[in-house]
């Protein structure tokens, strides 16, 4: 069980550990929430077990081995690139002062607003034969045909790693920056006083300190990379998810598809458990409540330029290129702005993203607090299992949501008809509720992940002191923990909001009639090979994502400069 040891629990010796008054309610709530998150996952297990697939021997002898290797390579690549880029940029903006730091500190989050498949389209557009880069090369060297010169193929596994990483690294950046801001400075200052170099501080103090956060961020990036179908399909990279869809749609085998999806999930679960096991003895918490603040060692000359460059590169790749490509298409289609459908889609997107992120962060907070308060291992285990659902390909997960929800609707409807002669119809599965629920389930991994690692940074002694001084668990939560958890809460809200505003696969399967979001609007164009016509809506998705990034960052910065 040590693999699932709760992080950030009160860890009071068992003999004096007694549940306090009022703890039971929190535990029950947390269990109920975890069950809610786990339900679609349970439905999928049931689905996988309820039918037998005739495809396994075929799969095992043909694509599965290669798809597994490709998926493993993709995961390794994305983990390395996002981990490195995310951690290094977070370290730079949190520990140093260099030209553009304030700008970079928020702009580094921007690529998050670019959906992976849109990034893939934009990169291919940017780098293909007739795109700006190759055209320039031909103009300079006088080449005529693509056979005259070598150019790296972006539609490849390394290309996919680059593209996915360039929009996924902000998961790592955000979670790690939060840790550095919340606690890194004190430890770093002590080490500095003792004469350690910045490099040594990074390697020996900050990196181990940030490891849980890096793990959380990388896990999120990996889950996103693994459940992606749009980008990998377009790039011709055949991952397991690609095999899942071809098994389901071309061979009419949903059972087999679900079985592969769950198998893939089991592997990810093991990886996550191993990583946790490897650092189970490490625990770092704040000795006291620090105000988050960035470091101020001023870099000059070459070092400063290098730092600026290191921060600018990811933004150029993950944001500027997609933004320019989309912008280029969009300026020729500004007439779309007069389309009331587009504005309705925008309204739906903002509304869905707000509700989903609020619900998810609140629930994630209650879950994490439930664990902290009671240390219930069963709850921890259940939560871990529940949030891993994010790695399931979106459409498959949406089916896991559809089946129980519609089942419940039909059950209630049948009883209402029999008892009261009233038909309630598809109240849940036929309305916006289903989409919000889907987002809640899919993005709990983000909400909960950031909050869990946030809680882990707050010393349990604070809770104990607060409780000893007579505060109830509720008052401790509101008066002590909530203010300390602000960066974590904001990060969680931001992550979920941005994810929810670009959510596609569940929305498309679960929405009511004539209900478009910006993402479905873009997808409808893309699916008939007219990606360009979705450029305006795609830009709006990015803009919707930027707004909260800007607001939340300003508030974090305002807080850091106040102290």
């Amino acid at each position, binding site marked *: 069980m040590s693999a699932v040891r709760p992080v950030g629990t009160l860890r009071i010796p068992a003999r004096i550990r007694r549940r306090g008054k009022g703890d039971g309610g929190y535990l029950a709530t947390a269990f109920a929430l975890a069950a809610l998150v786990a339900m679609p996952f349970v439905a999928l297990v049931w689905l996988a077990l309820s039918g037998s697939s005739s495809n396994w021997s075929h799969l095992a002898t043909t694509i599965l081995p290669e798809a597994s290797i490709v998926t493993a390579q993709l995961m390794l690549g994305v983990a390395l690139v996002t981990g490195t880029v995310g951690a290094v940029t977070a370290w730079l903006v949190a520990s140093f002062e260099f030209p553009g730091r304030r700008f970079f500190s928020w702009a580094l989050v921007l690529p998050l607003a670019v959906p992976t498949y849109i990034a893939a389209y934009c990169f291919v557009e940017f780098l293909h*034969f007739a795109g700006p880069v190759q055209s320039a090369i031909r103009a300079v060297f006088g080449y005529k045909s693509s056979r005259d010169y070598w150019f790296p193929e972006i539609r490849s596994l390394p290309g996919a790693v680059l593209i996915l990483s360039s929009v996924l690294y902000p998961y790592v950046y955000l979670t790690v920056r939060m840790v550095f801001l919340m606690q890194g400075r004190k430890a770093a200052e002590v080490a500095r006083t003792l004469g350690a170099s910045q490099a040594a501080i990074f390697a020996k103090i900050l990196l181990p300190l940030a490891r849980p956060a890096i793990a959380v961020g990388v896990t999120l990036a990996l889950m996103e990379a693994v459940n992606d179908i749009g980008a990998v399909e377009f790039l011709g990279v055949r991952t397991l998810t690609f095999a899942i869809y071809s098994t389901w749609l*071309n061979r009419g085998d949903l059972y087999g598809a679900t079985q592969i999806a769950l198998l893939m999930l089991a592997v990810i679960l093991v990886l996550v458990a191993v990583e946790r096991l490897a650092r189970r003895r490490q625990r770092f918490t704040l000795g006291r409540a620090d105000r988050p603040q960035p470091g101020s060692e001023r870099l000059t000359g070459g070092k400063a330029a290098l730092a600026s460059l290191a921060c600018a590169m990811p933004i150029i790749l993950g944001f500027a290129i997609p933004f320019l490509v989309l912008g280029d298409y969009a300026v020729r289609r500004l007439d779309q702005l007069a389309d009331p459908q587009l504005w309705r889609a925008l309204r739906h997107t903002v509304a869905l993203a707000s509700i989903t992120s609020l619900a998810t962060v609140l629930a994630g907070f209650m879950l994490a607090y439930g664990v902290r308060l009671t240390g219930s291992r069963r709850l921890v285990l259940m939560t871990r299992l529940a949030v891993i659902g994010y790695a399931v390909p979106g459409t498959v997960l949406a089916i896991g949501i*559809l089946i129980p929800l519609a089942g419940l609707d039909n059950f209630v409807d049948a009883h209402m008809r029999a008892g009261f002669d009233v038909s309630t119809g598809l109240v849940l599965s036929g*309305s916006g509720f289903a989409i919000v629920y889907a987002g809640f389930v899919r993005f709990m991994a983000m909400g909960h992940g950031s909050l869990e690692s946030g809680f882990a940074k707050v010393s349990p002694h604070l809770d104990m002191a607060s409780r000893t001084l007579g505060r109830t668990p509720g008052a401790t939560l509101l008066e002590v923990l909530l203010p300390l958890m602000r960066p974590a809460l904001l990060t969680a809200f931001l992550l979920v909001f941005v994810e929810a505003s670009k959510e596609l696969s569940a929305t498309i399967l679960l*929405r009511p009639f004539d209900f478009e979001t910006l993402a479905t609007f873009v997808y409808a164009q893309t699916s008939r090979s*007219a990606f360009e016509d979705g450029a305006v809506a795609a830009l709006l998705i990015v803009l919707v994502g930027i707004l909260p990034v800007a607001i939340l960052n300003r508030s974090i910065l305002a807080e850091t400069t106040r102290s």
Partner: protein
Amino acid sequence: MTTMRTAINTAICSIAMLGSSVVSGAALAADVNIYTSRQPDLIQPVLDAFTKETGLSTATIFIDKGLEERIKAEGANSPADLIMTVDIGRLDAAKQAGVVQPVTSDVLENNIPQRFRDGDEEWFALTSRARVVYASRERVDIDAISYKDLADPKWKGRLCTRSGQHQYNIALIAAYIAHHGEDAAREWVAGLRDNLARRPEGGDRDQAKAIYAGECDIALGNTYYVGKMATDEKEPEQKEWAAAIKVIMPTFDNGLTHVNISGVSLASNAPHKDNAIKLMEFLSSDEAQKIYAELNYEYPVEPGIETSELVQSFGELKPDTLGLDEIARHRAKASEIVDEVNYDGGPQS
């Protein structure tokens, strides 16, 4: 805590907004409710014509994956009246999933040739599209080719296609199985693979683009993409791609070309059955056939309807007479063959 308060205020407003849109969304459920895997833009004009003529309103949801599963889960309470899909595979999948019901209608029988209807009257084709060869105008000087020839080593390093697992390629391979048997089909797909200039990727338009860029000389694609590229006013560059290629109608041994369809089915629990059948009949009418096919540069299924000038410029289409149900039956095998020969792995050497 001001951000918190702002966030909460935003959320409250959003809940109100979403509430209103969901309610209005429910209110939008109309006289005929359509679940479609065909893009809404491509059916809206016909639906508008229907509404104008009959006064009946329509509502759509575009769902491209999991459409059958949704109707199945919704069961008796499903609001879906009609299912409109692209590709014989999806029409057949809906039939196999048991989410559609047969329709007996003289109008449909008269308008749609038997070949384009399900034997059990559970689906009806509305348009057809041919899977053809795009060939470089500059570098390819033939005007006729057979599907079999595409695997000839003389095309080594010159062929481009999208993923073999794409439904359009799956249907073509399934047709090949129906004509020549499984083993010949496997050999053929392996031959295609050996001729590939690059790993299968992108969509059909991207193959035309690759010919334009000189990466390959021939490609497989659907007819309508050529029409779309040739008329793309927003992206004039695509006109150049279209200009770089010519359409050749490849043939099986019988001298006929593989076609796939888009079609319509009546959902098994359709709440507005009569209206839905009215719309189905309307879709098979001269008027609708003309609009519907032209919207996407496709071929009408009703005989005697003239195609657009652009479509005619592709040359005369002689559609394969092979039963569409035959194609549907071999799809799973076709999908397996693609994996077995590792088609999507691209050229071996």
